[in-house]
Each structure stands twice: as structure tokens, then as C-alpha cells.
């Protein structure tokens, strides 16, 4: 039997090759994909995310872990889809109009994806109408918005206003992030939550969907 604890360890240490290798072995032994993800992979992302939040590891370690996680997920996803298993939630994420910064946004996307969410990464400089169109046309639970610059933070408000105008604000939870984002700002623009870091974004998304 493959020791799946090694999968957990290899994701935490960011070892892509080992995590892909063990996943293949486990699948060859007909292990339930859902069990692999829930018991060994999401727990690994929780561990590395916690270390990141406590400043025990930094962006490179988080990126490596997310990459290892993704490598394994790519093998498992088709099997999940085939057996009709739903993701934890469906997220669209983007950096708002006027802002071209993508590092923080991509970190959050990787962490959400690694934690079992289906993530559609819309890129940078995303206009409000594109987000509204996505919410109208697809089944989406969470809209995640990023802005690095204080000058582009007001674009987050624009997105929320546009969702309201289109009558779809209540269809989704809107979460926001960026170095200058605060709870006060979050309340001002009527977002559903904000997080200071990528790991916090995962707990926030889980919390909002559970409520």
C-alpha cells in the first residue's frame, strides 16, 4: 500500500515530483480520489497555510506547495468530475480595473484551488462588466477581488455597485484583499469579507459559504 502520509509531507515541502508519483500509485491501487484530497491534500495546504500565516514560511514555500498540490489535483480532477463530485465552492478571482499586480491575487487563487475550490482566474485589470457577466452566466459562489494600489481600491467598490445594479449582488459573496485593505474599507464598500493573507482568504471563503 502506498503511504499517503508521504503525499501530505511532499505537498508541505513543495516536492512536486514526489506528490505526483504518490498520487499515481494511490490511484493505481484504486484509492478513492475524494479521500486522497480531503484527508491528505487539503490538510497539507492547511499546514503550509498556517505556517505562512505565522511567518514560519514565506511566499516561495507557499508557491512550491501550491505547485505540488496542483500537480496531484490535475490527476484527480477528471476522476472527481466523472463521479459528479462538487467542488467546495466556485470562485472567480481578479485584480480590479487599473491595477496590473498579480502576485498576491495568484497566491490567493493557488491557495483556494489547493483547498478544494474551483477557481477561475480572470487575470489583472479586470473591468466590472466582465465580472458581472461571469456572475450572470455561470454558477459562482464567490467573487474575489484584489488591488495592490490605494488608487485602484475604489474599483472594488465599482464592481460591487455594478453587481447590485445588475441585480446579482445577493447571488455571490464578495471577498477583497490587498496591502491597504482594512475591515473599515470592506464595510464601507459593502464587501462580505477581507483577509490579510492568502491563507486567511481560504478560511474566509469556507466561513462565508458555511453561513
Amino acid at each position: 500500500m502506498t503511504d499517503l502520509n508521504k503525499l501530505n509531507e511532499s505537498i508541505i515541502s513543495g516536492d512536486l515530483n514526489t506528490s505526483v508519483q504518490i498520487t499515481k500509485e494511490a490511484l493505481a491501487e484504486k484509492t478513492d480520489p475524494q479521500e486522497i484530497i480531503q484527508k491528505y491534500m487539503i490538510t497539507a495546504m492547511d499546514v503550509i497555510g498556517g505556517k505562512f500565516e505565522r511567518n514560519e514560511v514565506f511566499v516561495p514555500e507557499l508557491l512550491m506547495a501550491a505547485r505540488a498540490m496542483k500537480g496531484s489535483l490535475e490527476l484527480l480532477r477528471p476522476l472527481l468530475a466523472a463521479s459528479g463530485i462538487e467542488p467546495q465552492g466556485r470562485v472567480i478571482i481578479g485584480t480590479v480595473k487599473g491595477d496590473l499586480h498579480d502576485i498576491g491575487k495568484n497566491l490567493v487563487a493557488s491557495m483556494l484551488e489547493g483547498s478544494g475550490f474551483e477557481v477561475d482566474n480572470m487575470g489583472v485589470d479586470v473591468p466590472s462588466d466582465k465580472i458581472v457577466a461571469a456572475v450572470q452566466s455561470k454558477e459562482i459562489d464567490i467573487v474575489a477581488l484584489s488591488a495592490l494600489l490605494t488608487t485602484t481600491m475604489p474599483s472594488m467598490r465599482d464592481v460591487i455597485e455594478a453587481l447590485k445594479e445588475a441585480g446579482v449582488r445577493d447571488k455571490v459573496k464578495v471577498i477583497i484583499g490587498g496591502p491597504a485593505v482594512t475591515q473599515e474599507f470592506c464595510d464601507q464598500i459593502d464587501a462580505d469579507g477581507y483577509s490579510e493573507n492568502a491563507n486567511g482568504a481560504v478560511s474566509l471563503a469556507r466561513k462565508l459559504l458555511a453561513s
Partner: protein
Amino acid sequence: MRTTGIQELLKSRSLLFCDGAWGTIFQFAGLKPGESCELWNRDQRKKVLEVAQSYVDLGVDMIETNSFRGNGITLAGIGLENDAVELNRLAAEISREAAGDKCLVLGSVGPTGKILMMGDVSENEMYDTFAEQVHALEQGGADAICIETMSALDEAELAVKAAVENTDLEVVCTFTFVKTMSGDYKTVMGITPAQMAEKLLSAGASIIGTNCGYGMEAMIPIVKAFRDFDSNIPLLVQANAGIPKIEDGKTVFPETPDEMAGHVPDLIDAGVSIIGGCCGTTPDHITAIMNKAKVYHTANS
């Protein structure tokens, strides 16, 4: 009198002064979100020159150039990659025009916004884009290259090497550190001041330091960390005027000139060599800093 460089100036004076922010001043002057600061070197030359002149007039020892996001990789994000050479050369020419022989011009080079380990750009591409930028800044009349707001060691090292190998200029490099839960300072990539100093000095930087961050007070422990590593290397500090807040839809930097200046004595005691400002600072902030430093110097000599 135009001097040969920063290190030369530091032989006769223990403390030098640098300019404050440009980008945040452009925002007050009408720069729109998403609009390129660097494009103003061509389209709003007068406004850029005014900012440069406002700092030169304070009697600072050096000013920077409006080229922070002027590397080809970042400019490609807004379709301006083919304008990189021109926009950087113009940036240096504008600062040179304002500075004349009165002060030095530091060509500003910021991060590309790409992480090498993600594989979006190669080391060669990154090196080449920095080489192109620093060469253009030298052509436009810069006296030194200031690689700033860096957090990744590999990217900063490539930028320093590109500057050392493609120009005859002094190379300054500053990192942005964040406070960790254990209370020490590291970049978001996990790099300590000592690790940064060791790597970049061996890559050929002759002046190092820290910029941006959480305001003036937070720079003091970072300077101490640098000094624990090396007691002699010239250290540049350019702090933000605090952490920006949004008030009534407008960006506000909370630290007043007096508040920032209040930390100058501690910064001097910690061992800073050059003080300037980053986001949110204005000529008023730099004036207050210079005055405070002079008073402190007189009282202690």
C-alpha cells in the same frame, strides 16, 4: 559642484539626504489609476520636471528619476515595452535638467512584478530587461542606479548585476521588509537584511538599504539589523509616510512631516547614511527631516 558619486560625498559628510515620493504626488496632480507614471516623461514632461525641481530646491544631495515601473517587462503589461528605452532616457534627462550640477541623479529601477520561480519569465529575459533600462538611464544622464522596493533575492541580484555589467555607475539597492510575528523583519520572500546585504554586496552593489514599508519608526530596527551585519556599508532609508488609508474615497498617508522627522535622531543613532522618503512623502516631509537632522547634529557635535 558636481561630485563623482555618493560614496565620494560620504567621505566628507556622515549623513546625506535624498528626495521623497513622486508617484503619489503625480496622483494628486491628476495621474489616473492604471495610467503609467513613466508615460508622463513624454506626455507631461513639465509636471515631472516640477516634482524633480521641488526636491532639488530643498538642497537634497540626490534625486531619483520617474522610472520606477519603467522596465520592459512591467511596461509590456500596458503595451509599452517598445517605449522602455525612450521613457527611461527621458526620465533621467528630466531629473538631470532639474538637478544640474547641484545634486546627483539616481536612476530608479523597480521590480518587474514577476517571480522567477513561477517560470513566467526566464533569468535571461529579466537580466536583459534590467540591462536595457539601466543603460537608458545612464544615457539620459543618471549618476547612479537605485534598484528599489525589491523583495526577491534572485531578481534583485540580476538587476544589480545588469547595472554593474552594463553601466559605469554606482549601484544602490533597497529592499522592502515586513515585520514578522516573531518581531524581526524579512521580505515577503523570507529574506533578512543580512541575507540581502551579503548577496547584493557580492553582486556589486555599493550602497544598500530599505524603502517603502510601514513608516519611519519601523525603519529603525531594520537599520540596526543591517548594522549588525556590516558596520561600514552606506545605508539608504526611504520610508513611506505611514501606511496608506482610504478616507472619503481618497488615499491618505497618515504620517505628518513632524511625525516622520521625530524618528530621525533614532535613525541616525542606528547608523543610517542617507535619508529620503517613499510613498506619501512630499517636499515638506523632506524639509522637516533635513531640519531635524541638522538640529540633532549640531546638538551632538
